[in-house]
């Protein structure tokens, strides 16, 4: 025998029944968000603090981004932490609480009812995040191995909790005096804890494991990954502290520089993973995901420009702020999800259908479960839409906004088509 073998039963991965509802919900949320984008495109020529823009942002952040991340992470966290998911029941609780809470909260923003609608919706979202946090926390602590990917996820979930708690406090701040200033004052803090603390840490944590895995790359660099993780956390702690204790506007370049450096270092990590890959051909889905990391540099530069105009006394540039938010949610975050859905969901669905394929003969592979022509068309409409809508915001051109939004809606329709094609796949024997 070789080495010190031990017989082991295969550790069961998370059931597809837990994971797929998150993907379906996220797909519909993306469709709803793009529909709202089309009907409210004119609002993007005005101020960002608009009920419809708040509704779209939260549909994208919670319904689209969080739900797909929740779903994927229930499946991927066991792979990342080399342990198993603590509880599938908690995962169901996360889904149902969020599934009910998000539309109520979004409706509250849309009609700007910061009373019962926003408070009930926001409380349900917080409850959902608490169940998710408990599940991930226990999964990580029960795992015997520590690695940088788990560390990223641990901190990401912590910042997510802080984000939603602050968000709920801001909702209450509309009707009761929770903070000394109005809710608009705290909006940048709420937004950046979510964007950087939650989404960026999580994307880097998951990406640093999946990108080399999908490329079959020999490259590993845990020290670099730990450095990136702590750099992002340090930038967030600095920003959080400066927001409350000294002038955040003046010192904002320090955390921006930290985040920019972390993105550049992560790109360096991806580049080396790519260079040392064993698989020559790279999937379109992986390409679009790596592209999304590059796309992240654009909103960071936009944010630096917004901050520079504020510090230099030119006042708030609302068009640039809107472009920044749009590039984060419809740009970076959406690009990752559009790509990674067809790497992760295809496997989940394939496993559901072909887990016992040996009894039915030669079958399709996971990459055959979605329509590649539709995927390529989706990628094209997406990139053109992103370009047109961003130009529409900056140049304040309603026609460009309308055309860009229509193309983003078409992107969502094509995405939903392929998602349903994947999850409704029936066993085929070749």
């Amino acid at each position, binding site marked *: *025998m*070789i*080495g*010190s*073998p*031990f*017989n*082991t039963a*295969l*550790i*069961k*991965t998370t059931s597809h029944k837990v994971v797929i509802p998150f993907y379906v919900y996220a797909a519909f949320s993306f469709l709803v968000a793009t529909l709202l984008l089309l009907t409210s495109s004119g609002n993007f020529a005005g101020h960002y603090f608009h009920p419809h823009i708040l509704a779209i942002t939260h549909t994208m952040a919670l319904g689209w981004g969080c739900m797909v991340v929740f779903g994927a992470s229930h*499946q991927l966290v*066991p*792979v990342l932490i*080399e*342990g*198993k998911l603590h509880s599938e029941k908690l995962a169901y609780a996360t889904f149902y609480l969020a599934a009910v809470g998000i539309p109520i909260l979004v409706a509250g923003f849309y009609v700007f009812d910061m009373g019962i609608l926003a408070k009930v919706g926001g409380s349900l979202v917080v409850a959902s995040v608490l169940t998710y946090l408990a599940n991930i926390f226990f999964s990580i602590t029960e795992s015997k191995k520590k690695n940088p990917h788990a560390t990223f996820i641990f901190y990401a979930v912590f910042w997510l909790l802080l984000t939603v708690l602050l968000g709920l406090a801001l909702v209450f701040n509309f009707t009761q005096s929770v903070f000394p200033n109005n809710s608009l004052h705290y909006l940048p803090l709420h937004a950046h804890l979510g964007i950087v603390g939650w989404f960026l840490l999580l994307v880097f944590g998951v990406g640093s494991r999946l990108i080399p895995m*999908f490329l*079959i790359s*020999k490259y590993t660099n845990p020290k670099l990954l730990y450095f990136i993780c702590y750099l992002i956390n340090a930038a967030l702690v600095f920003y959080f502290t400066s927001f409350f204790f000294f002038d955040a506007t003046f010192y904002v370049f320090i955390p921006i520089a930290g985040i920019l450096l972390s993105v550049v270092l992560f790109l360096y990590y991806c580049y080396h993973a790519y260079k040392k890959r*064993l*698989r*020559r*051909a790279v999937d379109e889905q992986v390409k679009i995901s790596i592209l999304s990391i590059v796309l992240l540099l654009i909103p960071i530069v936009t944010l630096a420009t917004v901050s520079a105009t504020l510090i230099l006394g030119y006042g708030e540039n609302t068009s640039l702020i809107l472009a920044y938010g749009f590039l984060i949610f419809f740009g970076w975050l959406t690009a990752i999800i559009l790509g990674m859905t067809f790497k992760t969901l295809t*496997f*989940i669905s*394939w*496993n559901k259908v*072909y*887990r*016992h*394929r*040996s*009894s039915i003969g030669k079958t399709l*592979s*996971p990459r055959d479960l979605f329509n590649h022509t539709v995927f390529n068309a989706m990628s094209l409409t997406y990139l053109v839409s992103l370009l047109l809508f961003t130009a529409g915001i900056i140049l304040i051109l309603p026609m460009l906004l309308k055309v860009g939004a229509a193309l983003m809606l078409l992107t969502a329709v094509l995405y939903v088509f392929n998602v349903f094609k994947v999850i409704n796949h029936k066993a085929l024997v070749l």
Partner: protein
Amino acid sequence: MNVTTNNDAKCTTALAGLKFVDDPEVGLNVVDLGLIYELDFQEDEKKIVCTMTLTSEFCPMGETITSDVTHALQNDFPEYSIEINLIFQPPWGYENISEEGHEFLGY
């Protein structure tokens, strides 16, 4: 990677069959991927013990791959019972991939 065995002739037959079992993500068969460590033919008990690994202990495709390996061995040796001995020491590494595997992947 060389597969340890106590019966070279039967091992060759078994490996030829296992070359039809692919890792669904990579598209490469389990032999050239280097997942098979040992094939032990226990003639007294009419049993084949296949000692193998996965690319990760928490590989989502683990159940499918081990089930396919069992089925492939059963096809070639219907008179034998099949036992999969799944181990993670030594862990799978890229150095396990065969020359043919590297060629398949484009290198």
